[in-house]
């Protein structure tokens, strides 16, 4: 006698603590095994692209803060690079170094958040998260020194950064660079090689390199699948071409690789910041341009390697003080394309972990 079974469809979210925001998934299960996943998003849609069309080029910077609110610096950077390309502005040398320092600090803080929440999803409730937030706090303190805010930074401006770093920033960042590697070692001591972590993440949610490329994934998701693609190397912006760093690449593309890769990237970012602090020249930090920039008619696309992947801004100018069109290519949204490939066939308990390992941010998915 055979038991008659039938698939069950479950709604996960939009309000669910594991979905990192208001994200909803319609999942069909056969027992515990996932048969089908349908992501539903748009709950956090704020119309950033449309709002940008009625603000001046300088004001849009404040909107970009709110896309991926755990990595505002990278968003600022991508946007100002696009405007600079559009208007043909070359920022001063010192500003470019400051931007790279800020963007790399932001990468560390974003990866710390990603790692912390990833372990939170694994059931290690709050403890690893608090460890990660301890260092993130130090980074936010640095940001506060730099630009007076901690989350919504608005630090970068078209043609540079808004102001030079205060004198107290330099000793503070040296201090940070001296103690941070120890803390990263501490995470690794606690997490890397931990049996529970290994058994829950090793060979779970495997993503093949081919699939990742076909899904146009980018960032840690793509690199963990063994594809060496980093915009900081492939299309260097600001001063990345003068800095020495490695691009960590995964091998299997499972959840564990994605975790390891983020830790490795934190170490590389520390290396980049150290070089920048050593190399940074004196000089102005902001090009003298009018408050109301009027780029010539045309369009421009600029992209950066944000902590989550390729973040791009496509701007169209009609010669006025506001962008005619502003399209944001957000890595979080496009990395979600791999969701079906890495979830279908796995169990319910793996789903939350795998989803957390992609590291999305709803502010950026819905814009």
């Amino acid at each position, binding site marked *: 006698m055979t038991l008659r079974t039938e698939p069950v469809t479950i709604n996960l979210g939009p309000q669910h603590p594991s979905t990192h925001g208001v994200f909803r998934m319609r999942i069909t299960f056969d027992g515990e095994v996932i048969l089908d996943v349908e992501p539903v998003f748009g709950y956090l849609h704020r119309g950033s692209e449309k709002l940008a069309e009625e*603000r001046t080029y*300088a*004001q849009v910077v*404040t*909107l970009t*803060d709110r896309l991926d609110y755990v990595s505002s610096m990278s968003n600022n950077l991508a946007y100002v690079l696009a405007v600079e390309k559009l208007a043909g502005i070359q920022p001063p040398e010192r500003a470019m170094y400051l931007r790279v320092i800020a963007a790399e600090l932001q990468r560390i803080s974003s990866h710390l958040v990603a790692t912390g929440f990833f372990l939170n999803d694994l059931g290690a409730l709050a403890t690893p998260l608090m460890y990660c937030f*301890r260092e993130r*706090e130090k980074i936010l*303190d640095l940001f*506060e*020194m*730099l*630009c*007076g*805010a901690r989350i*919504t930074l*608005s630090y970068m401006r078209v043609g540079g950064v*808004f*102001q030079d770093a*205060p004198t*107290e920033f330099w000793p503070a960042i040296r201090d940070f660079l001296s103690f941070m590697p120890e803390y990263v070692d501490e995470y690794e001591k*606690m997490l890397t090689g*931990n*049996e*529970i972590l290994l058994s829950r993440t090793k060979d779970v949610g495997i993503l093949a390199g081919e699939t990742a490329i076909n899904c146009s994934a980018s960032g840690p998701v793509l690199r963990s699948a063994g594809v060496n693609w980093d915009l900081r190397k492939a299309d260097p912006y600001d001063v990345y071409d003068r800095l020495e760093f490695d691009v960590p690449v995964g091998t299997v593309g499972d959840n564990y690789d994605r975790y390891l890769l983020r830790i490795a990237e934190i170490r590389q970012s520390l290396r980049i910041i150290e070089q920048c602090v050593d190399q940074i020249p004196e000089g102005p930090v902001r090009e003298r341009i009018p*408050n109301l920039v009027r780029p010539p008619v045309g369009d421009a696309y600029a992209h950066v390697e944000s902590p989550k992947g390729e973040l791009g801004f496509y701007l169209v100018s009609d010669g006025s003080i506001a962008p005619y069109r502003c399209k944001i290519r957000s890595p979080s949204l496009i990395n979600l394309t791999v969701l079906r490939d890495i979830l279908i066939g796995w169990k319910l308990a793996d789903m939350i972990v795998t989803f957390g390992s992609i590291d999305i941010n709803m502010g950026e998915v819905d814009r």
Partner: protein
Amino acid sequence: MYGIGIAKGLMVTLTNLFRKPFTIQYPEEAVPQSPRFRGEEFAWYEERCTGCASCAKYCPLGIIRIVTHPGGANVPEGDSYAIDVFDIDIGRCMFCGLCVEACPYDALFMGSGFERGQYRRDDLIITVDELRSSERRPSTWFRPQLEERDYRPQGGEPLSWEEVGR
């Protein structure tokens, strides 16, 4: 093999027992603020303000409301507009500081506080009278002249309009 994890975990607990805590007992202890902190209590100096409304135009949200009439006397700049209304609706403000960046006469500054909780949204509007009478501890955000003097708004002396100019 299994079981080492427990020992390792307890080791971590033990080492942390003797570490200096990272947390701050907030309401009793003040969180240290950097001088550039973009806080809530805007500092505005009527003596310096000409009523040009650059700040209002530059605000991405348009939440600064300024009403003026001709015939005021601005101290550093001579004849100018007198201010009737200068409202900042900080219930909608995102503390981006663009208004401060736009002010050409160093009349508007970000503040340093962050504890302005209210029960009603209307009470979050800072009116001109409040701005006039408040104790002004301006943030050094976008004001290099204050940074040069090493001014610290948190716990510092309130500054008068003559002390904040370039």
